[in-house]
């Protein structure tokens, strides 16, 4: 079984978001970048399934410039066998999906996994685009993934419940909790990751279909109105008569 795990490089979850003075770009100054937390589920699950089967490979794929390599190496340290970096700025979901589809097709991967969405762009789009480009099923978002031979059984989250879906390889799944407990690299993994192959390839395909014109931050709150705990019930009156939300 050949697994392709797509990871994106995103600001750490504790990052306070700020933009350049013209609001055109995210201000990267002083920001720590991590593997997108949703993608960690995809990566760890692929490694677990490979280990359980006793054979197979896990290839990690990132669309990004050279500054993403520390996180690609981290994915290799966690247990991926090799990596591919498409050397390009990830312009939009469509552009990224084109890169993934091309590599998935070239390498004849059986299972293409990624996180539900990236925590920076929050597109929740790439999985479906890749599935459609390759003409294969997509299961998104998947909470559980088990493999038996070429058949996968997945739990897909729907609003208010879940669906059990069975698909044959090849397929795409976007992953979320509680699929697995994401692994962290151990010392041996970090040592071996240095010598694992990381191939850099150029981008392919058509240009992006969407462009960001500007970023904005949410409006600041006016300040909190405190109600004494002794007369907590007054809050309910304020919510009805002043805020008009109940």
């Amino acid at each position, binding site marked *: 079984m050949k697994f392709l795990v797509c990871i994106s490089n995103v600001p750490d979850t504790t990052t306070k978001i700020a933009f350049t003075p013209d609001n055109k770009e995210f201000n990267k100054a002083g920001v720590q970048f991590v593997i997108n937390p949703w993608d960690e589920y995809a990566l760890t699950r692929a490694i677990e399934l490979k280990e359980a089967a006793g054979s197979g490979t896990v290839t990690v794929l990132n669309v990004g410039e050279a500054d993403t390599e520390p996180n690609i190496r981290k994915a290799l340290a966690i247990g991926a066998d090799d990596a591919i970096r498409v050397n390009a700025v990830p312009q939009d979901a469509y552009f990224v999906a084109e890169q993934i589809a091309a590599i998935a097709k070239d390498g004849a991967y059986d299972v293409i996994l990624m996180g539900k969405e990236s925590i920076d762009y929050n597109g929740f789009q790439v999985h479906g685009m890749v599935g459609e480009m390759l003409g294969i099923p997509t299961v998104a978002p998947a909470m559980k993934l088990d493999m038996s031979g070429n058949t996968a059984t997945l739990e897909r989250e729907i609003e208010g419940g879940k669906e059990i879906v069975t698909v044959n390889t090849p397929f795409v799944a976007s992953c979320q909790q509680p699929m697995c407990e994401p692994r962290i690299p151990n010392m041996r993994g970090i040592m071996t990751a240095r010598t694992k192959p990381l191939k850099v390839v150029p981008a392919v395909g058509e240009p992006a279909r969407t462009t*960001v014109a500007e970023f904005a931050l949410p409006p600041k709150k006016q300040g909190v109105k405190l109600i004494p705990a002794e007369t907590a019930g007054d809050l309910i009156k304020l919510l009805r008569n002043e805020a008009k939300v109940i």
Partner: protein
Amino acid sequence: MSVLVVVECADGEVKKSSLEVASYGAQVAAQLGTTATAIAVGEANEANLAKLGEQGITKVLYDAEPRLKDFVNNAYTKLIATAAEQEQAKIIVLANSNIGAAVGSRLSVRLKASLATNVVELPKTDNGQFLVRRGAFSGKAFSDVVLSGDRKIIAVKKNSTEARHDAGKTAEVTGFSAQLSDADFADAPTQVVMQDQAGGILLPEAERVVSGGRGMKGPENWGLIEDLAKALGAATACSKPVSDVDWRPHHEHVGQTGITISPNLYIACGISGAIQHLAGVNSSKVIVVINKDPEAPFFKAADYGIVGDVFDVLPKLTAAVKELN
């Protein structure tokens, strides 16, 4: 050309988020000087579909194929693509739901359309551009995105726009068939399992939410949260540490790596307000924070606050709501 709106139904009812989407689509159609047609998916009821006229929809397409009751990605994609071709729709609007995102992303490739998800406002269509505002950085920011090309797909974030109700108006419901075959249902679910919802209110669609954090001290104390939620007609939620230790199921986790919600009212009980949690809730219209620590960072993001013990304050609030009703 027209605007095509994808309306999700369950148990015969149009979902609340789809009423918002229908309103949104009708307003986009008005902006562009055209009409909005809806295509129904899921288990629909013709009388309820006709009521989409209240949201400004003129015509509703409905394929009564029984296998469309449950979500099937390929079949839904083909159904909507066929409707879009028939209606010559240049704009397709759907909910930013698990169904909407799964279908919208496939459709964008099939129909060669540009796609924006998580959209929070009506588009700006002046000076020849098509610009939409969408949530980014997991609720910490917005990005204004230009959609290029002839066709566009917009997935609208739940609770970000209000559904209009123009009482008495009806839409024409028309039978429609996308000629779906067995192959289109190859990825159909083998089983669908629904959760027991507290009071039947789904968290992603809820207008009011009562949420608990580690300050609740244990799952055995959640009755206090549930009592207030029940009195308010609210859904229940929790912070990440709470779902991490399995006090509550993960689908209740709101925050950067859980779900982001934007209810009218969010009441946080015993949650300190880490930046990752705030990201998931800061688009709520009114935020109430109850915490015994006056230095809890959440108070800075709140509209109303009570510095006090949740075990003392929550019963008082529940009693006050009951008194008011």
